[in-house]
């Protein structure tokens, strides 16, 4: 086996999720399987919470309430009001849990190590059945696009469509030029407003950058973690990966937290007017 072969068959983790099964045009990849598993875990968790909810909390409910209360208090410090927090919570809390469960499932023994060998272009590839859901750009990009779209919906609903559009394409600045010149005799608008207009256009680029940074940060961190664990296991399979497993548990939590906090920050920013936000 050549050097390239070794890279791809042993430690070599593909940058893209590997296909497991094909249903007509649709390819089921291993990250999708993990995502389904994560959904299953969350459904079981949610149903078990539902079945244990009582007016006088005990055990598990106490823990869940403490977590929920802590999360809401933390979100309050970002949004500034409980009312807003409760409006954003249905998106942000599930996002956090979904990313967290996906990240942690990726560290479980068997995920990434149980699979099958497949031949592709004459190269033998190891294809694991499961791969962390967030180690697939399809997943992180989908979530990032969803978040950015959600922020724009919030912006339109909370501040109004005209105000929201002017945040990115400041048509109002162009429209106010004649009024400023002829009524207020303010000729500085001839220089200032076009600059402001182009600054506004930069925000559009910022939105694209937001999508890219959200998705690539999460994808890169999780993928790097998986590769790190693979490399450590290949160096010495016993004991060496243990500290890195803990590190990955931490990284999984931090990345879930970063993604959801950024989502909350973006949602909160869009819910203010442009002037208020600055």
């Amino acid at each position: 086996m050549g050097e390239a072969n070794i890279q791809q068959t042993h430690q070599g983790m593909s940058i893209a999720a590997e296909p497991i099964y094909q249903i007509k045009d649709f390819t089921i990849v291993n990250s999708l399987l993990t995502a389904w598993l994560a959904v299953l875990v969350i459904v079981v968790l949610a149903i078990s919470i539902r079945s244990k909810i009582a007016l006088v909390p005990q055990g598990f409910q106490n823990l869940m309430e403490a977590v929920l209360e802590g999360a809401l208090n933390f979100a309050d410090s970002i949004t500034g009001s409980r009312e807003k927090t409760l409006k954003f919570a249905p998106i942000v809390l599930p996002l956090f849990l979904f990313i967290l469960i996906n990240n942690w499932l990726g560290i479980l023994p068997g995920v990434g190590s149980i699979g099958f060998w497949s031949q592709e272009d004459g190269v033998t590839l190891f294809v694991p059945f499961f791969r962390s859901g967030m180690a697939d750009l399809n997943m992180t990009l989908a979530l990032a696009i969803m978040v950015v779209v959600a922020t724009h919906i919030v912006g339109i609903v909370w501040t109004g469509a005209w105000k929201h559009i002017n945040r990115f394409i400041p048509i109002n600045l162009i429209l106010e030029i004649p009024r400023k010149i002829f009524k207020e005799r303010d000729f500085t608008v001839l220089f200032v407003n076009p600059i402001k207009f182009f600054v506004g256009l930069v925000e559009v680029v910022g939105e694209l950058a937001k999508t890219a940074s959200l998705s690539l940060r999460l994808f890169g961190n999780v993928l790097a973690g998986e590769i790190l664990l693979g490399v450590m296991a290949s160096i010495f399979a016993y004991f060496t990966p243990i500290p890195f497993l803990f590190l990955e548990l931490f990284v999984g939590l931090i990345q879930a937290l970063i993604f959801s906090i950024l989502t909350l920050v973006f949602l909160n920013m869009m819910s203010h007017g442009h002037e208020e936000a600055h």
Partner: protein
Amino acid sequence: MNNPIVETFHLDWRLMLAQLINFGIVVLVLWFFALKPLSKKMQERARMIEKGLADAKESAERLAEAEKERKEIIQEARRQAQKILVEMDQNANQERGQILAKAEIEAERLSEEGKKQIETEKKQTIQQIKKEVADLVALATQKVLSGEVTEKIDAEVIQKALQEAERELKK
């Protein structure tokens, strides 16, 4: 699919959609099965605790009010009792005074009446004695004149008449 980024990362809109559907399921399940009922129950509990605290505060206030009222009633009752006692004392004193005054007047009246009666009786007795003495004198005179009376008899008769007169006076 000529875009190198799309090829490198195997970007596929159907996979993205599938992942979004997964996330949608997570949102729905978590919201309707866990977060909503949990936060509802927490709010319900918070409301109950708030109500309980408010009730307890109200009860304490009512208790304090009742205690105050009780003290006021007791104080009023004591004040009334004291007033009644003072009034009764005053009445009793007044009545005693009246009774005493009445008794004194009555005693005075009885004493006056007694004196008057004694005086009357005394006058009547003297009158009667005078009459009897006159009768005796007349009788004695008659006996003396008729010679029936000796010196000895005369003395006895006189003695007898004096004794009778003395007895009458003692009455």
